[in-house]
């Protein structure tokens, strides 16, 4: 089980990198990130993690049957 969690973390990490890279990086004139790209990546990652945490919380509630009214 521990190994499955580890695997899922690594997969999540790969997904996060892929998503934020795709969103933030679009020019390839240099081989290092420029300042705006760097900032975008950090915001994106932060947002992704907060999003995942929120979804987890709601998902756990629903899984436990604790649905709340609108």
């Amino acid at each position, binding site marked *: 089980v521990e190994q499955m969690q580890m695997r899922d973390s690594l997969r*999540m990490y790969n997904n996060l990198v892929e998503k934020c890279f795709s*969103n933030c990086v679009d020019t390839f004139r240099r081989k290092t990130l420029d300042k705006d790209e760097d900032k975008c990546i950090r915001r994106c990652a932060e947002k992704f993690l907060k999003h995942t945490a929120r979804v987890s919380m709601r998902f756990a509630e629903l899984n436990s049957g604790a649905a709340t009214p609108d």
Partner: protein
Amino acid sequence: MAAMPGSPSGINREQAFAVAQQEMEYRVDLFNKLAGTCFEKCMEKRLKEGDLNVGETSCIDRCVAKYWQVTGIIGQMLSAGGGGVAPR
């Protein structure tokens, strides 16, 4: 995939473990698809800040709830009309 109260003693530990593992893989897969879909639907494309704003937060909550509802509807359709595939 429901819990099996009073399952016959014939079922052995390995099988029970395999079933539990599949259940878990299914939930992980469901979670990942749900999270990815709601990210696409709810996050504003322009990243002005790292925080979730109010609109995004309530969008996530509703997106998760609706996704869950869809899971139920399609699960019912599959178990009713269907070919035996009827996970919760």
